[in-house]
């Protein structure tokens, strides 16, 4: 495994069994994250971003089954396949919070209201770093200072309800980074915050990334935030990655009609918006009992009859480092023909 790659997902699937049938929330996702860089995972709500991130830490709800390989490549250690671990094993618990940690969308509900911030923050440190309470406390205070909490030695003994949303998210970040993880997964970390607070939190994350050198998997539905934060971007639709490229490529040269639609629906600074912003018609369906074919074709303006609605679309490299899953590109059609030819 390439040393620069810190995490690699290979054909990861998460299927939920429900009374209505199998929900293929994540259906064959592959990407790899580069050490110290930020990968964006973008898409409308319901397309499988959160479940993908939960799969990485094996936190998917009990009715979900994870398959595929999730290779974690820690510095100087043999890669481990998280996909093969047991949900309750000591191995996965050692990874959680230490090698890979996570912050969530809702700073309101992400903490238990019954314990002090210090208690919940020190819990991670006590689990993974030191059994010594006073050392853990010192370290926790230091982390709070780093994330910009004023008077941390006093505030550490306060309860979550005494913090504002933005401050809570800062504590959440402090908690996630307290054991210097290799990877930070941030699932819509600023979606619930006011715009000004949002900017501060994003800036903080960037500073801390320089400090701690971790890689970030940044999940959002907001392309504006992606432009600011990410080095590389995966665009996700209906459980699949439909486009993957460096961030400039995504913005200047989007290939997949879904990505193009997402880009057209955000206002651009410096451009006068003529009339209304475009938005993509329709909503993300629930991935249950899906027909073969491109998941997006019902909402797509460029749909090719007999192709898009009939065959599953493979991905192909349409430009160097730029992958797309769409029959509009000859590379993809070629990959499809090869695959179909191979079967016959």
């Amino acid at each position, binding site marked *: 495994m390439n040393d620069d790659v810190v995490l690699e997902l290979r054909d990861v699937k998460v299927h939920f069994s429900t009374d209505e049938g199998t929900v293929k929330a994540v259906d064959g996702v592959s990407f790899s994250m580069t050490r110290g860089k930020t990968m964006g995972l973008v898409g409308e709500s319901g397309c499988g971003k959160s479940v993908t991130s939960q799969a990485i*830490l094996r*936190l998917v709800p009990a009715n979900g089954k994870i398959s595929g390989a999730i290779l974690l490549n820690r510095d100087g250690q043999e890669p481990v396949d998280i996909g093969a671990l047991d949900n309750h094993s000591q191995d996965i618990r050692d990874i*959680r*919070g*230490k090698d890979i940690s996570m912050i969530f969308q809702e700073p309101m*509900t992400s903490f238990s209201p019954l314990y*002090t911030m210090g208690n919940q923050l020190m*819990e991670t440190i006590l689990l993974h770093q030191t059994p010594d309470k006073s050392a853990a406390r010192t370290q926790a205070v230091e982390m709070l200072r780093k994330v910009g909490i004023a008077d941390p030695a006093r505030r550490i003994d306060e309860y979550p*309800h005494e913090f504002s949303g933005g401050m809570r998210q800062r504590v959440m970040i402090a908690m996630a980074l307290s054991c210097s993880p290799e990877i930070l997964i941030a699932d819509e970390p600023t979606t619930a915050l006011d715009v000004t607070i949002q900017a501060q939190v994003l800036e903080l994350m960037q500073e801390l990334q320089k400090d701690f050198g971790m890689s970030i998997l940044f999940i959002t539905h907001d392309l504006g935030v992606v432009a600011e934060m990410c080095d590389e971007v995966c665009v996700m639709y209906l459980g699949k990655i439909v486009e993957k490229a460096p961030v400039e490529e995504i913005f200047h040269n989007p290939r997949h009609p879904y990505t193009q639609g997402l880009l057209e629906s955000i206002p651009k600074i410096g451009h006068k918006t003529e009339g209304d912003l475009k938005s993509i018609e329709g909503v993300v369906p629930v991935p249950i009992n899906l027909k073969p074919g491109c998941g997006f074709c019902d909402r797509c303006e460029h749909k090719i009859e007999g192709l898009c609605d009939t065959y599953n679309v493979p991905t192909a490299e349409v430009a160097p480092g730029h992958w797309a899953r769409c029959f509009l590109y000859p590379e993809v059609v070629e990959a499809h023909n090869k695959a179909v030819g191979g079967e016959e």
Partner: protein
Amino acid sequence: MLQFIAKRFLIMIPTILVISFLAFWIIQLPPGDFLTSYVAQLEEMGDTIDPQVIENLREEYGLDDPFLVQYWKWISGIVFRGDFGYSFENNMRVSMLINERLYLTIIVSLFTMVFTYAVAIPIGIYSATHQYSIGDYTATFFGFVGMATPNFLLALVLMYVAFVWTGNSLVGLFSPEYIDAPWSWGKFVDMMKHILVPVVVIGTAGTAGLLRVMRGQLLDELRKQYVITARAKGVGERTLLWKYPVRASLNPIVSTIGWSLTGIFSGSTITAIVLNLPTQGPVMYNALKSQDMYLAGGFLFILAILTVVGTLISDILLAWLDPRIRVGKEA
């Protein structure tokens, strides 16, 4: 926290006074009084009683005084002399009667509460963490059966079973030789043998209800984001369960301890009659029937105080469990 407790204590005093007033008022509500129903009873049986004697008694007990004067005599006696008045029916001071019955009532009630919580909470936790498993369905089934079975029926069934198994119906709280004996180890052991049946009978319905509450609360808490946060930190499942969701789901249960105490007091009367328990229920019931007003009022008053104290304990426990309440009150 101390300030919070002190404040709650001060609020208790006016609450209890108001309750005493209401208790006395309610006891007085039915037309007539003990003497009129006593005379009526005698006349029914063909006896007569010298009206002058009755008149003297009325005078002596101040039965014709205005309501407020009667209330004042009663409450000042309780507050300043610990004197609860006289029980006409039993020809005894009320305080003697209360003394005898009250501590047994409290013992039975406390045992019932311990039984209720000790059974309901662990099973509730199991049911919630194993939702839709066979164990969960079994607990649910017995829970509903327990809730739906009337206490007196359960009492009769258990008495029968106890009789078949031990040759002793385990009626009452003590074997005959211990009833009037002073406390001893033997008497205690004897009581423990007898107490099981009433505790199960009185506690079953409450246990079944509490089990449903515990299960529902815990299921709610288990779905909350902070559980995932803790899991994502690497906290083990068992530690996580007890530290976060279980503790959170205890809050609503703790906050109703005060009421469940009242429920046990008033809900146990029929059971106590069926099982011949020397607790307050049957005495209270008779006192109400014969308009033995000081006896009924005295019991009502003491039970009300116990309920208020129970609520206070709930509140203190809740404040201790939930920082949002504690901090909110102090601020």
